[in-house]
């Protein structure tokens, strides 16, 4: 079992106030500033829950794919993964788009696409996001 923790403080009302992701358990990042405007309008260099979800999804997928490829006897040299998360205020998180470009010696395209699809289905963050209406994947070999 693995627990991971994050800490946020917020001062003032939603529209006029501001928050900070003060720290996370690993110490890997923080403080990061957040505001409603940076979430719903222009980011202005500030992060948001949806950007953090995009980072979590990209990281989770890349681990699942590299694991699956190694298990299949074709470990990857390099995976470049993008995740783009769409948030509609009042509706919620409607979409996560995963894109991967990979260098995988010894694999053919069908086997790679199969591994990528399996990683998308099985990674724990994809499972946690199972109620997102649309999770899509574009996978290609570099």
């Amino acid at each position, binding site marked *: 079992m*693995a627990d*991971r923790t994050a800490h946020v403080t917020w001062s003032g009302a939603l529209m006029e106030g501001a928050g900070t992701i003060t720290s996370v358990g690993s110490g890997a990042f923080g403080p990061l500033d957040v505001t409603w405007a940076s979430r719903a309008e222009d980011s202005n260099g500030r992060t948001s829950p949806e*950007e953090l979800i995009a980072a979590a999804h990209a*990281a989770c997928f890349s681990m699942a794919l590299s694991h699956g490829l*190694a298990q299949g006897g074709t470990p990857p040299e390099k995976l470049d993964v*993008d995740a783009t*998360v769409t948030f509609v205020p009042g509706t919620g*998180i409607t979409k996560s788009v995963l894109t991967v470009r990979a260098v995988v010696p010894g694999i053919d395209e069908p086997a790679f696409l199969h591994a990528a699809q399996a990683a998308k289905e099985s990674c724990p963050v994809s499972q946690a996001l199972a109620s997102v209406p649309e999770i899509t994947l574009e996978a290609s070999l570099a």
Partner: protein
Amino acid sequence: MPRIVREAEIDWEGTTARGSGVVRAASTGSFELSATIASRIEVVEGKTSPEELLAAAHATCFVTSLGSELARMGTPPERMHVRCTITMDEVEGNGHRIVASAISARGVAPGADAASFSTAAEAADAGCPFSALIRASATVTVDATLV
């Protein structure tokens, strides 16, 4: 309402077991972090993981919902502090799964009492898009205290 799009990217070198990745906030450049499988399932050693990023996302999502609910009730917050703990566990026959997200919220909101603060926290949980999502696979708990 407009659609809001936020993007992140990771470059991973090598296998899951021995390789490592760098996660970047592509939309904003507000963070660049290293991640390994060991930092995800074993000792963190100062590296982040998908679950830690989800904890940060849920805490941030919840705090904005709570502030919004308190303001709606006529008791806007002066200050709120939210901690989120995400738990990943091995589920029999299903590998690793995210099984729980525990929110602990403390707030200073002049005019609110313990009951109204608790009501606001419940409404915040119901309204936070991330709480709604994570319930698909995990248990969400909220512990709220007016300071």
